[in-house]
């Protein structure tokens, strides 16, 4: 009843939900690769922030169909962050007496999902009428997308931190995730930080098209999703017994 086998104490419904959350992360990364990398031109960036507005409008207009299809994949990819966040919080909650860190994780995860979904909105909107908008508006929408994704450091670093702490504070054998995942989260939290620099540079390695402020945080983030998906699936496995 309710998916709970009272004889063995195994919770099959929980197992299935957690598998859904875990695989959501994998699907989110796959959809980002299709929507953001192959079609959408988000990574590698199709433009650099020091190019003139007219160049932004021209480039978007040239690739308008690919960007639109890419944006559809992107919004599905980013919406799935919510499922990932729920899976991480559910696994953390199993080892808490009273919920505290799992609530924090949900707050950060929900904020992060909203921020990420807005990236996809911005990307879709710039391809809606690139020839009718003033070129500066197209430029601003691209800036806005990268600012949402990269300048949102405290949201995503904070999320990683509240995942790491309950693992580190736990007694031996009562960690929600393996201890190395805590350190992996701390590492990811540090790597998002260079994203703050995009406000101060319009060209070079610290701008939103540069290796330090764009590639390092993005790589860390998508690697982080895969690691957390693995962690959730492993947690689901342990719940199955």
């Amino acid at each position: 009843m309710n998916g709970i086998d009272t004889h063995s104490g195994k919770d099959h419904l929980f197992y299935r939900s957690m598998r859904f959350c875990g695989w959501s992360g994998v699907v989110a990364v796959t959809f980002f690769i299709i929507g953001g990398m192959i079609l959408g031109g988000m990574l590698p960036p199709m433009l650099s922030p020091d190019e003139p507005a007219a160049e932004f409008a021209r480039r978007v207009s040239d690739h308008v169909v690919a960007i639109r299809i890419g944006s559809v994949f992107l919004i599905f990819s980013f919406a799935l962050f919510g499922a990932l966040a729920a899976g991480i919080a559910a696994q953390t909650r199993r080892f808490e007496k009273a919920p505290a860190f799992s609530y924090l994780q949900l707050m950060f995860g929900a904020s992060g999902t909203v921020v990420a979904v807005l990236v996809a909105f911005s990307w879709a909107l710039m391809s809606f009428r690139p020839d009718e908008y003033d070129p500066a508006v197209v430029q601003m929408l691209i800036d806005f997308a990268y600012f949402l994704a990269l300048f949102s450091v405290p949201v995503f670093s904070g999320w990683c931190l509240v995942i790491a702490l309950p693992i580190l504070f736990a007694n031996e054998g009562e960690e929600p995730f393996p201890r190395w995942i805590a350190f992996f989260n701390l590492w990811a939290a540090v790597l998002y930080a260079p994203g703050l620099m995009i406000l101060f540079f319009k060209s070079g390695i610290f701008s939103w098209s540069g290796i330090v402020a764009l590639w390092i945080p993005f790589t860390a983030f998508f690697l982080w999703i895969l690691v957390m998906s693995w962690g959730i699936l492993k947690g689901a496995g342990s719940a199955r017994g």
Partner: protein
Amino acid sequence: MTSPDSAVSSAVSERTKPHVPGELGIWCFVAGDLAVFTVFFVLIALGNGDQAQVFAQSRASLELWIGVLNTLLLLSGSWLVATAVERCRESVQSGSGPDTRGAALQFALAILTGVLFVANKSLEWGIKIAHGITPATNDFFMYFFVFTGIHLFHVLIGLGVLIALRRVSRRERLDSKALRTIESGATFWHLVDLLWIVLFALFYLI
């Protein structure tokens, strides 16, 4: 059934065998951070190759003594932390807590070296900015301010870690779990030191 005491002593003997300090996770972090800093080092080296003249001139305008002083500060800090960890390890081995007061003092002195590093770095940046040199001056100073800034961020996190270690070392009794925390935190501080030595060489010496 083992009594709690024998469980502790077997845990202790487990810890006194040759082992990797800290735990797997902290080395995962160290490897990850080193990988990213390697990218930074390569970027600095590429910049140095592309704009040899600008980099040489800018490098000559850095105050070498500030860099040397900062290196000495971090090296002393690392030495203090390493000896403090050794004391804690001995304390865990002997099963009592005789010498942890000394360890706490050494952690406090290590914190002092870190604070002096931050003060010295602020002084260096202050002098440069007072002379009108900012990240916008040229690529050398852009790299200099940002990469030493990212390192400074590591130093600040490291100071937080050292404060936590000092608190742990002041406990009445250190167990193997406390020692693991101390060793992991110390490993991070050594990483901060190591990264600075490479940055120091790349910015001040080459």
